[in-house]
């Protein structure tokens, strides 16, 4: 394979690189995906708990995630593979006027983009999530079009389909260099081989910065780690993803949902962030998250935790991804800095990357790429990352 030339080499077979490979291969390009890990989705993808929402406040994310939802929701019908998509919606709860204000402010933007999200008072919200602690509950937002899937199965489904469409994947290969000629990408070198290509996509997630360094670029992507867990399976009792954005000592928010398999998957956002690549389990996580979850939903008290893990959020200064061509190097594209939203942005983004590389961008794409430009001025963080 080493003597062959590729139209595109993608670095990273994760939440972004894998669907991108599918859509590029589908567009007729000869695609190679390189990953240093032993199989697909073994970086941050498998650490994700699978929530998929279009109800962001950044128009670029909204567009990408809306498309992701369409792709995932129709996947089984189109391709015959069950990726455990469930359209259960998202609920953001408000127990204090602070969250009520934040959530209601967001509705203005979200409605402007035609998102199906509404404010429910406590009584109406309890009909959607009857097990919420009613004490002090003001209300919350509910977006029934959002949902969740198995990140593992979805990533693997993209992988299978990408290969069926002709994409090649090579695992256990560390990219060691990107060769340039006259300011253009010429080849990608790994510890195993060298692959000629005019186009390389950096989709290396938390390790995007190191890939950029290979061509002298310094991408402002810095991973921090979040902790997640999964419980034993029980009969279905919870439809939406429940998000609680109340800050508490040690954490800024947490969220959980019931998987198709009946398990509750949960995740917490540490505050202050735990910056770095350390993914080793810590003793503080479970007491912190369990307390908040049991307080919010007392019924979870008897649910037994099965497993916990940490995963990396490749963060950017403003909490939005960095997507587009490098200005300095022709043929070097970035699809990085997903800020923990690779699973929900990746499929939509994969399609956009395919259009970007085949030169078939549509006007809405230009808007998205403008917002996510790696060369933008970094302003304040998005309210709901």
């Amino acid at each position: 394979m080493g003597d062959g030339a590729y139209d595109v080499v993608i670095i990273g077979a994760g939440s972004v690189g894998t669907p991108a490979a599918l859509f590029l291969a589908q567009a007729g390009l000869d695609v190679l995906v390189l990953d240093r890990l032993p199989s697909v989705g073994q970086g941050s993808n498998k650490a994700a708990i699978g929530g998929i929402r279009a109800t962001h406040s950044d128009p670029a994310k909204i567009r990408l995630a809306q498309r992701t939802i369409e792709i995932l929701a129709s996947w089984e019908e189109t391709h015959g593979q069950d990726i455990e998509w469930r359209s259960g919606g998202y609920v953001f709860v408000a127990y204090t006027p602070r969250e009520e204000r934040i959530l209601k402010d967001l509705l203005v933007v979200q409605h402007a983009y035609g998102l199906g999200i509404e404010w429910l008072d406590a009584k109406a919200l309890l009909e959607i999530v009857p097990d919420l602690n009613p004490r002090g509950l003001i209300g919350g937002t509910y977006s029934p079009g959002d949902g969740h899937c198995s990140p593992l199965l979805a990533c693997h489904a993209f992988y299978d389909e990408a290969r069926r469409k002709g994409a090649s994947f090579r695992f256990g290969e560390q990219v060691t260099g990107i060769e340039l000629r006259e300011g253009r990408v010429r080849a990608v070198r790994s510890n195993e081989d060298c692959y000629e290509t005019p186009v390389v996509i950096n989709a290396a997630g938390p390790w995007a910065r190191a890939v950029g360094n290979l061509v002298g670029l310094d991408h402002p992507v810095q991973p921090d780690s979040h902790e997640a867990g999964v419980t034993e399976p029980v009969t279905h009792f919870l439809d939406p993803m429940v998000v609680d954005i109340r800050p508490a000592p040690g954490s800024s928010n947490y969220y959980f949902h019931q998987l198709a398999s009946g398990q509750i998957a949960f995740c917490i956002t540490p505050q202050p962030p735990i910056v770095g690549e350390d993914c080793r389990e810590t003793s503080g996580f479970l007491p912190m998250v369990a307390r908040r979850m049991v307080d919010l939903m007392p019924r979870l008290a008897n649910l037994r935790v099965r497993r916990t893990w940490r995963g990396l959020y490749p963060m950017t200064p403003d909490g939005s991804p960095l997507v587009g061509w490098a200005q300095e190097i022709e043929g070097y594209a970035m699809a990085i800095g997903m800020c923990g939203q690779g699973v929900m942005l990746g499929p939509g983004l994969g399609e956009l990357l395919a259009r970007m590389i085949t030169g078939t961008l549509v006007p809405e794409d230009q808007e998205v790429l403008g917002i996510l430009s790696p060369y933008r001025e970094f302003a304040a963080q998005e309210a709901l990352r």
Partner: protein
Amino acid sequence: MRLNHHPILPIDREERFRFTFNGQKLDAYPGETIAAALFAHGIRTFGYHPRDGSPQGIYCANGQCAQCLVIADGKPVKACMTLVRPGMRVDPADGLPELPRVSVPPPMKEVERIRVPALVIGGGPAGMSAAIELGATGIRTLLVDDKHRLGGKLVLQTHRFFGSRDAVYAGTRGIDIATRLDREVRAQPSVEVWLNSTALAVYSDHVVGVLRAGREYVLVAPEVLLVACGARERSLLFKGNTLPGVYGAGAFQTLVNRDLVRAADRLFIVGGGNVGLIAGYHALQAGIEVVGLVEALPECGGYKVHRDKLARLGVPIYTSHTILSANGHDGVESVTIAQVDERFRPVPGTEKTFPCDTVLVAVGLDPADEFYRKAHEFGMRAFVAGDAQEIAEASAAIFSGRIAGRRIAQALGQPGVEIPLEWERMAEILKSKPGQRGAPPPPPVGDVFPVLHCHEEIPCNPCASVCPQGLIRIDPEDIRRRPQYVPTGGNACLGCERCVVVCPGLAITLVDFRRDQQNATVTVPFELGAEAVREGDRVTAVDVAGEDLGPVAVTGVRTSPRNDRTVLVKLLVPRRVATCVAGIRLRARPQPAALPRPVERLGDDEILCRCERVTVGEVRALIRRGFRDMNEIKAVTRAGMGACGGKTCGPLLRRLFREEGIPLEEVTDYVPRPLFMEAPLALFAGAEETGDE
């Protein structure tokens, strides 16, 4: 059925009470687990798996897997670890359990964090021995164990222990060693013991999460950690391998010897190592028929004396045989075995099916060392001892625990703590596998003498240390050498029978011609209870390997407190065969007859991951498609995602790769993650009671 008498174990039950299972009123006794109480009523299907409706029951009986899930008072629990309570309402876990409704959060406090110089996980022979050493130096030590009493697997061992009499209680029964060590641990003022307390995780911040007494989550920060968690039983792939009635030999011993239930009527054993051989012997002691034992190798791998004990009691041992299937619908009804060729492939046409209700899998143990590996990865000061370090006999575990205890004391800067050199050497000796077998020496001459039916090198010396005349010799430098009876001038055998009593292998008889030169009185040890044999009975004398030597008369049955439940049976045996007699068979055991036609189980229903019901066929297909990362197999099939966290299927999957000709260097192992065992969110939240309505 419960055991109401046992030749070795005391049976002492308190007042019984009622609980319900599936609406049916059943009785139970204090201290019984739910699993034991159900088995006592012949119930061994505890529920049906949500994925495929397959019947579920006991598999590990050790809190490791989750196959014995039941719903107790509305909450899913492991039947093997949860004590049954008066009035408890137990229901089968049929499909996914319903999470009970709770309207008000339980009171939650900060999770307690405690610091301790030494934390020992595991109160078996190694952990207790380490704690005793630590206690002796006054080091504050916390010993946690997930069971309701200390002792680990010692509490299941009704047989006398091998090993060195001076060093590790050889010749004493395992259950009694457990009691002694327990007493010694409790005598140490600096050692605190938490029972029913499972270690859930070792975290990167050098903290160990412990579920204290099953009701409170505590974070323990030790200066030094000792992992002495023992071992877990290997599983095996065969058709019907998850039917209720197929379980580990350790699980069986737990049900029979700890929980005192007659867990089976007719038993078949897979594996001729010490664990399988001993389990077979324990079954016979509990009055359970052992239909047979298969061993894939041409010889049993366990001690020959253990093998011979079983053979003498009439258990057929099929070497160079393997199990093909456990057959039945809601549980085991029969087992099909076949001969294997030199590459361990079943030979067509050699299939035999035997009716039985239980199949014990005794195909080896793997160290339960994940906490040690985590601690090591996280740079904690940690030690490992016993089976968690290296699979060996409990005597070896005692020694390695002692050494680890002293090493920890040294690591904590305790002055004057030394580890005698001979300890290290003894630890090595006790770990040794059986060595050379020798030909039996010519029988001794004289009027009275012992015959040592012990011709294999194993680390054991009680016989040499009890002879008041010093006539039984084992190289004092190496107790693995075979014992020799060496009558020397002036010193003659007194016929005291002490060697007969003390031999853990039941491999010494006493031959006495003093009354009658033509017919010897042969004293044989017997552990199936004094009531089983009476003076005047005619029994069948058998040689060391169980071959018939003809009928003989029982001339005496001696029990004595000094002999500790070993009954001495005296036989009148013609001179010709007197030195050949090694034991007795009470009645002509009906040789278990194979069914006229072997049963063929249909379908590829060998289960690789029993938690998620993933078949071997599914996974084999992926391996053949090129999958080499076990985590990818997990992502696609869910194998390893279940309650046990890959503890059971991990070794099986590695083995499947080898079977498929894939070197393990090409395979990426599961990423190990906490928790070791599932525990309710409320406990992590700092609640003590889980507040159900």
